[in-house]
């Protein structure tokens, strides 16, 4: 979807441009920018984009929400916007109303499980939960009594061991020890932890693609400013070729991520090979692009890009960090490989061509 057709993404773009300038944020070590930004995002209804009006949200379409995430990635945004959107989406699956304020989702890794106990309480541990420390509520997917449930949990009732991820954002371990949820309902038929991980993976893919677009942009600009050997470095063929490869990685990430988002936005069910292929591929390919593309962006910037003062790390490190959330590319590659093997050699091309 072209941006100009998407008023929601345009609103997000404007808020980030006004209140989340990368340079300003980078220099403000106290985080004074966070509150006004979050407030503006909330006033625009963005954190609850995917929650319908009657459940307390702003009722944007899936497609509109996805493009907000791509924009957020371009600004390497370090408030829990994506997490709150995802949490609202999860709660909505079970028609649980979303509260105000920051939220995040657990589990955030396919390896962790939260269990629903016989007494209706929740137990379990979730590692690598983005922004848990900043969240007022958690949207939780739980397993138990032979079925899958979705719950809203008050963050204050959980134990949070705080951690910091590669990108400098909160990445915490959350332990639930017989916590009574504020609300709990059965997940819709066919919805399971894989569904949540795939959706989370697509969210991260769009953010990674956005961060790569930004890295391409600042790298091209820098190469046109920096002079060495009496020339702009953009005039050196080796530098041009590096930037051409960065453009390729950025384009591949964007193509994979938007294709997966489009697939989910127009799917009747999230429980089929097409969604799996698209979402898993997006996470795998975007993660690879983060590594290759981020590496090139740093190379082009030389030492300056390696400093704290420069904004490059805001994008490069977050893109690298996002690879690990909701299943790493290695995890999804194994799962996708297994699916392909089970379907068999003669079904591989039909699967690829079906998209």
């Amino acid at each position, binding site marked *: 979807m072209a941006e100009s057709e998407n008023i929601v993404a345009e609103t997000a773009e404007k808020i980030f441009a006004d209140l989340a300038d990368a340079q300003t944020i980078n220099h403000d070590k106290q985080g004074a920018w966070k509150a006004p930004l979050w407030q503006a995002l909330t006033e625009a209804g963005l954190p609850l984009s995917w929650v319908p009006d009657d459940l307390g949200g702003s009722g944007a379409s899936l497609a509109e929400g996805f493009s907000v995430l791509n924009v957020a990635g371009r600004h390497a945004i370090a408030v829990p916007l994506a997490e709150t959107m995802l949490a609202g989406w999860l709660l909505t699956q079970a028609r649980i109303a979303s509260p105000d304020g920051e939220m995040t989702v657990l589990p955030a890794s396919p390896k962790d499980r939260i269990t629903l106990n016989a007494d209706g309480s929740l137990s379990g541990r979730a590692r690598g939960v983005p922004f848990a420390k900043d969240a007022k509520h958690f949207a939780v997917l739980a397993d138990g009594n032979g079925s899958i449930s979705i719950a809203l949990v008050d963050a204050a009732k959980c134990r949070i061991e705080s951690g910091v991820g590669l990108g400098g954002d909160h990445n915490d371990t959350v332990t639930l020890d017989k916590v009574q949820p504020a609300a709990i309902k059965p997940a819709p038929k066919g919805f399971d932890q894989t569904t949540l991980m795939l959706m989370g993976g697509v969210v991260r893919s769009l953010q990674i693609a956005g961060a790569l677009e930004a890295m*391409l942009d600042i790298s091209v600009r820098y190469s046109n400013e920096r002079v060495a050997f009496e020339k702009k470095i953009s005039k050196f063929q080796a530098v041009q070729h590096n930037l051409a490869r960065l453009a390729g990685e950025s384009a*591949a990430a964007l193509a994979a991520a938007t294709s997966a988002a489009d697939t989910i936005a127009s799917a009747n069910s999230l429980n089929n090979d097409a969604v799996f292929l698209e979402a898993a591929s997006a996470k795998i390919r975007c993660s*690879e692009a983060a590594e290759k593309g981020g590496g090139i962006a740093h190379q082009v910037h030389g030492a300056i890009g390696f400093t704290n003062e420069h904004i490059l790390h805001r994008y490069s490190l977050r893109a690298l960090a996002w690879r690990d959330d909701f299943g790493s590319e290695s995890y999804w590659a194994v799962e996708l490989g297994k699916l392909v*093997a089970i379907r068999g050699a003669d079904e591989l091309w039909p699967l690829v061509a079906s*998209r």
Partner: protein
Amino acid sequence: MTAALRFDPIRLPEKCEQLRKEVRAFLAEEIAAGTFDPHAPNREDNDAPEFSRRVGAKGWLGMTWPKKYGGQERSFLERYVVTEEMRVANAPTRRFFVADRQSGPVLLKYAPEHIKMDILPRICRGEVCFAIGMSEPNSGSDLFAAKTRATKTDDGYLINGTKIWTSSAHIADYMIAIFRTSPPTKENRRHGLTQFLVKMKQPGIQVNPIGQITGQFEFNEVVFTDYFVPDDHVLGEVDGAWKQATSELAYERSGPERFLETYYVLTELVRAVGKNPDTRSAEGIGRLVAQVHTMRRMSVSVAGMLQAGKEPVVEASIVKDIGTVWEQQLPHRVRDLAAFVEETATNRETLEKQLDFAIKTAPKLTIQGGTTEVLRGIIARGLGLR
């Protein structure tokens, strides 16, 4: 943001899927009838004139061209489906592929009407084979260094010089070639080349086969000695071929043939590892599938741009760059992943043979149709660096 590279998620419309079924059914019949072996991409000669006619009879050549020239006025996306299904099946497309993709569109744009009426319907019927005469011994990447001369006579031109690496020249009926009609100018070193339609199998042309490291004979040296081309065989502007040649290359650069040439080894790898792959094979296959899926999504997206009448030069170059690097690495990755597959796997032998051929093929993939380095230069220009 600077260069906004958009690859919108274009989907193939429903009628493409109907067409895909027809193409698959046709190919299955051809395979059953023994026309070609889908597991043997390394066949000696990829030329199959009768097959070519049958593809033409289906209406799958010149699909996007006007009906009055034998075309079907169908979309680029429909043509895309036919191309990818043929490619994945390892169908013998040599005789018609270049004409359909590239030469026909050039004639449509630049040839006089009587030539269009003569040749285009025959291309559509799968009867004629085309070659591309761009490269010369001292002019490859630097196309504009071409020296083969076209000297004006009363009613045409006399050609003298040598083209090289000319794929299919040995079986071709025609070649679309660029020749030097005047020297380059100071302001524009690309000036002075003209595009011509050349009839092969005439006196004054000698085609000398050149063997390839795969053991195949696909490209040739073509020597012109006082070869006569009539005036009405000039295509487009005299001395202005540089504009035409670069737009022609856009057709060459983003199609499914730019990442599917070694695809067959991936299929055979999946067959060889079976239903319960170990973690290493599963992970390797998963990555390769994610990569080919992404490539294809990008390539379909560019086909959508072409269909919408855009000129996606940078996007097409990106697809060719990433696509050819990928298809070049693919046989090597498959070899890595197949290392622990049991010797007794049912298709181990087929896989080995295919790998052998794909590894031999791989080096050319990033050279033909414009080298990686040249493509990256085009992308860099698109980014505003040149």
